[in-house]
């Protein structure tokens, strides 16, 4: 399992997989969200192994 810190700050657990696959699973459009692990930006096809903490940042802000 991996931990995912959602854009609004909540953390959830989900199965390991590629970044894009995880984003789709959680209902995000991969264009609108950037994923980082240990402070590094990840590409959509990167695999997140068990134990990874993925942090999601929405590209949308404000009004």
């Amino acid at each position: 399992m991996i931990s995912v810190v959602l854009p609004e700050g909540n953390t959830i657990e989900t199965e390991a997989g590629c970044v894009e696959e995880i984003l789709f699973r959680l209902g995000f459009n991969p264009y609108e969200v950037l994923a980082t692990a240990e402070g590094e930006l990840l590409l959509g096809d990167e695999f997140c192994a068990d134990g990874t903490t993925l942090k999601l940042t929405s590209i949308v802000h404000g009004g």
Partner: protein
Amino acid sequence: MADCYLCGERAVFRTEDGPLCAKHFSKWYEDGVAAAIKRYDMIHAGDRVCVGFSGGKDSTVLLTVLCRLNLDCELVAVTVDEGIGGYRDDTILAAKDTASRLGVEHRIVSFTDVCGKTLDELLENSPQAACSVCGTLRRRALNRAAREMEANSIATGHCLDDESQSVVMNYLRGDVTRATASFNSNSAELFIPRIKPLCRSSERATVAYGLCNNLLVPLPECPYTRYALRKDVRTWLGKLEYAKPGTLTRIADGQEELLSRMPKSEVVTELGRCEKCGEPTANRLCAACQQLERLM
């Protein structure tokens, strides 16, 4: 995992040319902004550029990149405090911090200065009008502050996504005047000209640049966003951009091509001064004072 096509380091962002590492991506992004400034002839030697600086992601990246490009101009920044409870306080702190770190002269102006009330107070009975009221009053506050700071231009953080969304929104509203930019006036002397250096940079690349360069702090979402048509258009275009990459660029390119084929209106609307506040307007009252009359 992909490697940077320029140096073989671990890639962090996929551009249309190929994947890039953090260092080459940052350079690619800055070069893109510099190219847009040149292409649209936005900044000239000796200019004093006032950056509309909310402290959010786009304007933080904008101010940072303008500083890093070492342009032959002077930069100042203005933050407009609309008075939105639970939202603005954090972004203003972030703005102060960034401006101080970059050594840029920074002024904060509030809606209370402009009209005596906060946005929350103005919208007590009509929150649906938030984006329209806020946009109009913010433009007035920014224009006035930029004039007082003797700026030649106001740079805003509107990126490619914002521009493409605006094109689509104009059609959805049936607003032909805005869609064709056919309004022609003597406004140049009264309004400080706007420039949008990020207009050819995607929101995704802009936020990625902010993350790669540790510029961004987590900030709350504006509580009025849920009322905006832009939110629906943004979601729709975001899906299209993912399914058909380049959609946003094609919309912006198409709009530019359309405008280049449009004859410039020969009817020049003479602008005068608003009876109430003295700001430029074609009517008795400017848009901001009309909004305020309806709300107060």
